[in-house]
């Protein structure tokens, strides 16, 4: 089987642009919205999608994602809702990498091996578990690797060179570089310390690097593109969906991704 993430990075590197990866909380705003919103994002130019597995206590997330998770849980979204959405997307022919992002407790509650098997069966490409640093991750990393799924770890500007080395040793697919010291949420500027941070990571790994947290405008994506291989857009994307009417959500998603990816000229304001 070809590796969807490798394929994606080969393509975006050939095209000389960063991959654009939006983040979407699963089962939100309505329980059955995930499939149509992921498809709309891909139509708009998303190269991959991170699907958020809701958690009641998302301590690495800002208020935008936290509220979305609360609403999704209240609507009945659970681990199987997420896998069912991924399976349906694959059945409908979606080839883009789909990553499950979340926290470790829902994985543990489902059973780590069962979680990996169900994810592989549904067509998930990898995991990003915010509160599972590599030194705690063996119980997920080992079965994930056996199943051909990627473990994407995070690094932050606070990361020491030792931590960068440890993450580089364990990561596969790409490394998620958190652009700021902080939680998720849209910010007006990309952090000034980003270039130095990315350079420190770049010197220690050949894996593709994605930059996320605080990426909310096309200038940010363009700036990230000069430093790294992918830009992750989270809270700004989530807010766009929250602000749209229910029938208008796919169009809003498509338009947002077209705009931020630079495929379409920015609307005149």
């Amino acid at each position, binding site marked *: 089987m070809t590796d969807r993430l490798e394929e994606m990075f080969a393509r975006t590197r050939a095209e000389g642009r960063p991959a654009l990866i939006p983040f979407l909380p699963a089962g939100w705003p309505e329980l059955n919205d995930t499939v149509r919103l992921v498809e709309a994002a891909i139509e708009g130019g998303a190269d991959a999608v991170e699907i958020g597995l*809701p*958690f*009641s*206590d*998302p*301590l*690495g997330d*800002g*208020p935008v994602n*936290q509220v979305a998770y*609360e609403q999704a*849980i209240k609507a009945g979204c*659970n*681990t199987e809702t997420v896998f069912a959405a991924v399976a349906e997307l694959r059945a409908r022919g979606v080839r883009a990498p789909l990553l499950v992002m979340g*926290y*470790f*407790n*829902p*994985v*543990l*509650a*489902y059973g780590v091996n069962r979680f990996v098997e169900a994810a592989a069966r549904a067509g998930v490409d990898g995991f990003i578990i*915010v*509160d*599972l*640093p590599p*030194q*705690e991750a063996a119980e997920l990393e080992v079965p994930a690797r056996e199943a051909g799924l990627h473990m994407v*770890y*995070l*690094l*932050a500007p*606070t*990361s*020491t060179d030792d*931590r960068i080395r440890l*993450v580089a040793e364990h990561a596969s697919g790409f490394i998620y570089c*958190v652009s700021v*010291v*902080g*939680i998720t949420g849209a910010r007006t500027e990309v952090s000034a310390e980003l270039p130095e941070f990315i350079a420190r990571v770049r010197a220690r790994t050949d894996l593709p690097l994605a930059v996320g947290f605080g990426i909310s405008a096309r200038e940010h994506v363009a700036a990230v593109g000069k430093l790294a291989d992918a830009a992750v857009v989270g809270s700004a994307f989530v807010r766009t969906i929250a602000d749209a009417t229910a029938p208008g959500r796919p169009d809003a998603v498509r338009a947002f991704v077209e705009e931020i990816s630079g495929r379409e000229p920015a609307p005149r304001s």
Partner: protein
Amino acid sequence: MTTTLPDERGHFGEFGGQYVPETLMPALIELEAAYHAAMEDPEFHRELDALLKDYVGRPSPLTYAERLSAEVGCKVYLKREDLNHTGAHKINAVLAQGLLARRMGKKRIIAETGAGQHGVATATVCALFGLDCIVYMGAEDVRRQAINVLKMKVLGAEVRTVQSGSRTLKDATNEAIRDWVTNVRDTYYIIGSVVGPHPYPAMVRDFQSIIGIEARAQMLAVEGRLPTIAVACVGGGSNAMGLFYPLLEDNVRLIGVEAAGEGLAKKHAATLSAGRPGVLHGARSYLLQDQWGQVMEAHSISAGLDYPGVGPEHSWLKVSERAEYAAVTDDEALDALQKLSRLEGIIPALESSHAIAHVLKMRGTVSPDDLIVVNLSGRGDKDMQTVATALGVEI
């Protein structure tokens, strides 16, 4: 039984660890190094011991509770953490962490609080050391513990009310962690219990062990022997670990008492009695959660026990069967508060009343030769509004 845990990576058997966003890992590594350096520095201990004596008022007395003993059927002693400055055991670990923060050059202190006792202790120590203090407190707890909120403000702390989730200690802790992730470079997070990522559970336990070290020596001095049973309430579990840890290798029954709230079949906070292992707030431990791993809202009449998690070392003591864990209801705790008040002239905190309630329930199961030490972890002044509401009294 081993007192050598946690291992190098912060694990107590399968529990504990460091389940945190990567942003915090360097801070935890830095903290652990600073903590070990402090523990090996005689000057740190000199400073801490002097403050515990002259500022907190240690050692706290071990009081023989004669009339309570008659009710229970064996001798019962109370370890009087309620007599500490700020009214509870919390100050022990806060003072030590405040000294540590000062050594590390961190000028900004954050903390979470449930009942407000940890928040007041933190605000107190920050005032003493001239440090900036921000305390996160759930909106529900702000309502229940208005006096403690006022005390923190009088002491110069900023109290940030948390409106998310269940608006109690769990959510205040989420907010404090978010603050720490954002401001990690200049901020020290003073965690109030034996919870959170390594090294907190071990560090807070070590700083609270003064309770058990004193109680052990005091009991030997008064009775010439060790207690046969040690009892303490368990929310996160810091006062219980403080009492239990110096007794782990002795032949002493250790009983932790959780909050059964409205009953284990209804709303409660009895994590060890009715939860399953999981990961919350940086550590693997027992947790109240639904089948999908979503954390459930806890309930207890006592804000300090109203937490769906528990310290990882308690999970270890449970599965290794070194300690037993029981649970008592809101009503039983309220009764115990009144009973101890009338029997001994001591109004216990609602948290500590859970331990007293369990001791009262042990009547008939103890022999006259048993010797019980109960950790009276805090005083009940802060709970008078809650007690009035529960008893239908207007004040």
